[in-house]
């Protein structure tokens, strides 16, 4: 699982250290939320198993694929700027943003569906967790897209180059974090029972 020893290059992760501190803080909040979900489920196993089946797993799969694909596009964008290919970098970033948009659309349809069935935070403990967790993540997708859009604009204006691309790496790291959280959220809330 580890990369080749000879390519260990740095003491610090790609991007600005400040964004990493932020990422860690955000991840901590999600970790606490996940653990809370799992242990609360322990007290209401039947309830959780019953209502988990009302979720739209196809939609969740599409969203998982959308976020992974989006993350991959961002990786390609970073590779592109490292060889000074600004145009391609911008294209990859735009592709990544459109995948994020797809996520938001699919998720919104899910919410509308739940809403039309009269489900809200007070319906039961499972829905409380499902809605809270996914909505908190939803907000992060929006935030991540804003960051991606900002770096795409900067990249288009030629602010980044082979030598200086910390900004892109910072935004990329944040976006991967949004993906990472969903990779746990998806099986935990939609699949595991």
């Amino acid at each position, binding site marked *: 699982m580890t990369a080749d020893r000879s390519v260990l290059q*740095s003491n610090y992760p790609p991007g600005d250290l400040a964004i990493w501190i932020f990422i860690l803080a955000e991840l901590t909040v999600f970790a606490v939320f996940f653990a809370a979900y799992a242990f609360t489920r322990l007290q209401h196993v039947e309830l959780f198993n019953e209502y988990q089946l009302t979720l739209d797993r196809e939609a969740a799969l599409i969203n998982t694929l959308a976020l992974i694909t989006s993350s991959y596009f961002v990786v390609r964008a970073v590779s592109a700027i490292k060889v000074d290919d600004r145009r391609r970098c911008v294209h990859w970033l735009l592709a990544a943003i459109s995948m994020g948009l797809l996520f938001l659309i699919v998720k919104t349809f899910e919410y509308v569906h739940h809403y039309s069935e009269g489900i809200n935070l007070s319906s039961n403990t499972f829905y409380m967790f499902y809605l809270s967790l996914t909505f908190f993540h939803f907000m992060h997708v929006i935030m991540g897209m804003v960051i991606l859009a900002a770096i795409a604009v900067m990249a288009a204006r030629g602010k980044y180059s082979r030598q200086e691309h910390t900004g892109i790496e910072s935004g990329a790291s944040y976006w991967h974090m949004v993906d990472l959280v969903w990779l746990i959220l998806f099986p935990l809330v939609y699949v595991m029972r």
Partner: protein
Amino acid sequence: MKRLSELLGIRPCTLIYLLLISFSLTTFLVAKMGFSGLGLSLMVLFLALIKGQLVGSYFMGLGRVRGIWRWPVFIWLFIPGILIGMAFYLSYP
């Protein structure tokens, strides 16, 4: 990973991407076929943790970092992973 991707003639990140996609599809199929139970839950969880580590090491680039910054994603996966696993283990009588 690098050698394998060279063998296949694709970029390492593309290989990781394909792995992530196939793991996700597997997870989905488990759900779709209506499987449940402790073993399957833990397997799905383990797959998710592997996916997380792939994203951390290859997409986020922590695999190329020396020292403590190599580990935050691993720790983040490990601790909640243990906790979630434990909670699910306890939920089966």
